[in-house]
């Protein structure tokens, strides 16, 4: 549960929340998607948004990204109110959003291209992140020449390349088969460790949420509210296979399942 909300502004910046969501409501005409959401996303941690389909996870993520206007309420990033997209946030799209006419290299470097960075510099940064997501050798391919999972990784590399502090990922592994999904989850954990950024992650999979998250926010059915916040106690220094057999991991999965179960009937 959120505990020290009262003293949050007194804390030094390194420990304060990177993203604060304050009484966000969102109505699409007569559909009430979000009702008064209050959340803090701790700096340097991976927080997952989990909830029934159509409850408003994508909507909340896009409001944080500044892509969608909330009906009321405020989002603050590093204490500053969000009025639109900003350089401190990067979005990984559920449908990849790759330019089909651009190579992997240009797609990954696109955020830097928009900022007006020179070609040589942005390509050397892009090359680094292409390697980081395991796509070395595919720099000159076009998106239609890649598999779904590879396209998704291009989207990830593009978000990493702009060096934003906050990464917003909307179901990034949804188009990927189970084996690759596990591999990506492990890669993601490695990247979280290495990049030390704040991650906000949307997924449908309870197992995935427990496996990768420092914190899991359970949203209720529409109109969506925060129903529970869980911090999985999982020893991530263990091997991936050991984690998936770990009692703490299995208990947390069960706890969340019990929490969500009454929404599915």
């Amino acid at each position: 549960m959120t505990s020290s909300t009262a003293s949050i502004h007194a804390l030094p910046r390194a420990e304060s929340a990177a993203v604060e969501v304050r009484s966000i409501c969102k109505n699409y005409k007569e559909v009430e998607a979000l009702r008064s959401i209050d959340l803090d996303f701790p700096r340097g941690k991976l927080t997952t948004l989990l909830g029934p389909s159509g409850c408003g996870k994508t909507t909340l993520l896009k409001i944080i990204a500044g892509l969608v206007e909330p009906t009321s309420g405020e989002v603050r990033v590093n204490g500053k109110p969000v009025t639109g997209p900003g350089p401190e946030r990067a979005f990984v799209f559920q449908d990849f959003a790759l330019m089909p006419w651009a190579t992997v290299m240009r797609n990954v470097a696109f955020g830097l291209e928009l900022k007006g960075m020179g070609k040589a510099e942005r390509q050397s940064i892009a090359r680094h992140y292409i390697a980081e997501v395991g796509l070395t050798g595919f720099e000159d391919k076009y998106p239609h020449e890649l598999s779904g999972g590879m396209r998704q990784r291009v989207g990830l590399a593009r978000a990493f390349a702009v060096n934003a502090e906050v990464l917003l990922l909307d179901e990034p592994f949804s188009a990927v088969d189970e084996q690759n999904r596990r591999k990506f989850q492990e890669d993601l954990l490695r990247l979280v460790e290495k990049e030390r950024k704040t991650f906000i992650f949307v997924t449908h999979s309870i197992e995935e949420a427990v496996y990768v998250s420092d914190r899991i926010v359970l949203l209720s059915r529409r109109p969506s509210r925060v129903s529970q916040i869980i911090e999985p106690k999982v020893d991530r220094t263990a091997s991936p296979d050991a984690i998936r057999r770990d009692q703490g991991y299995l208990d947390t999965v069960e706890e969340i399942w019990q929490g969500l179960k009454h929404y599915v009937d």
Partner: protein
Amino acid sequence: MMASSQVNGPARAVHSPAGWGLSLGRLFTQHPIASRLVSLGLFFLIWEIAGRVPISYAFPTFLETLSAFVTMLFDGSLFAAYGSTLQPLIIGIAISGAVGVALGIVMGLSRTAEWLVAPLFIVLQSAPMAALIPLITFVYGIGLAAKTLAVIMLALPVVVLNGYKAVRNANPSLVAMCYSFQGTKLQQIAKIIIPDASPVIFAGLRLGLAAGFIGVILAELLITPTGIGDLITYHRSVANYAEMYAAVVSIILVSTLTLAALEAFEVRVLRPEKRRG
């Protein structure tokens, strides 16, 4: 959410089943040039046979037409004619392209502009523009201006409407992506909307070019007896039917080559991914 079909490659052609059909099918799908040559060859063969039957005194055979064509190519009359036909065509298409794409983008992005401009072009597109061409004689007299105007009258509506449709239907997910990386409005137009819309814009330009050809030829037949239209009229009046046919066929040839050049430009500059399978 938008599916990933946007980035999928083009669908492969279906092969005909078994044996000889299979290998011929493969030849055609792998070498589109070969299939075009075969179908053209077939057409010329039928033409030659029909010419020899003969259908009519005014219907030359393919070989007669070909030799007339070669003669006209070497005596310079074709070049002279195209010199005066292509100039208004190129000017007219360039103006239509620039105005059409710009108007299309403005209409695709602004509801007010759409409301003001779109109905006009929808009406113009369905109007029998060819019938309006004689009107411009009185307005602009004879010469380059009249021909250019005829090209614009026929080409502009289809170019504008295609540009507008393409911009209006630009992939919203890519537009959001550009916005999320703080792309400016100008970057959004130049780097996302135009390349995304370019296949449809170019389809519009190709249709516009074809329509522009009709416009310029009609202007030459109806208003200003110059260029290739005049060549056709002249050879018809002196009953040089092989020459007349050669001039008509040369129009098809020139328009095909121009369209191919336009396509090559698009693939090279705007959509390089289409160069590969």
